[in-house]
């Protein structure tokens, strides 16, 4: 097999057919994914830019959002975060780590009986406020909790 074919096949195999197909314009990403990945929000370098990209520019502080997270994170690479929203009609919960290089961490859209509750583990680069942004009944609400980090978890 000549060298060019080997390199081409190796490249195509490594990239994966979906990615190659998207690059070739054969398969539009929107056909594969439910909703386009919100690149603007996830690459935003400030909390306000991230919120704007999510359509959540002026969230109202709410005491009905509880953030359960350690006061001091032993390991910044694995910080357990639980967000519970008692606000009726919660349709989504987003998590931001305000001092991460790109604050937007995740956005969970809930439907068909899913409760206003998510639990996950995140990376934090440094001590920061963890902010939860909840959309419910067409309005946006927020709450935040500080988590101290001794060893940053982003590898930078």
């Amino acid at each position, binding site marked *: 097999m000549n060298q060019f074919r080997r390199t081409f096949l190796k490249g195509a195999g490594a*990239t*994966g*057919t*979906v*990615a190659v197909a*998207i690059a070739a314009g054969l398969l539009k990403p929107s056909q*594969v*994914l*439910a*909703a386009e*990945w*919100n690149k603007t929000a*996830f690459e935003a370098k400030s909390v306000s830019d991230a919120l704007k990209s999510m359509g959540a520019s002026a969230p109202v502080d709410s005491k009905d959002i509880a953030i359960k997270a350690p006061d001091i994170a032993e390991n910044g*690479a*694995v*910080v*357990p975060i*639980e967000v519970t929203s008692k606000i009726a009609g919660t349709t989504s919960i987003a998590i931001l*780590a305000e001092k*991460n*290089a*790109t604050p*937007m*961490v*995740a*956005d*969970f*859209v*809930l*439907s*068909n*009986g*899913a*409760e206003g*509750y*998510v*639990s*996950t*583990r*995140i*990376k*934090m680069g440094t001590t920061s406020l963890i902010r939860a942004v909840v959309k419910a009944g067409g309005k946006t609400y927020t709450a935040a909790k500080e988590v101290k980090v001794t060893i940053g*978890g*982003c*590898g*930078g």
Partner: protein
Amino acid sequence: MAEPMKIRATLQGDTADIKVLMNHVMETGQRKDAKTGQVIPAHFIQHVSATVNGKTVLDAQWGAAISKNPYLGFRVKGVKAGDKVVINWEDNKGDKNTAEAAVS
């Protein structure tokens, strides 16, 4: 990345408590290879969806700041024992994985 996900779906009254543990490197694209000095490219799950009996209950978008080998917990009301939970994820390179479990 093709390693199976672990799903645990337990019923508490009529609410299912669902816990998922996925296998994924969740590389941020900020780390450098110690030997070559080259940046290790970003490789992370971007989309996660969950259905119960075919109905979407959770549709999540993730960034690279979700920890390696992601853990996800969520709850769904109006669920019965035996209902089928399916979890799908897709990463920034187009790799996918799916797993299912019955609520017990």
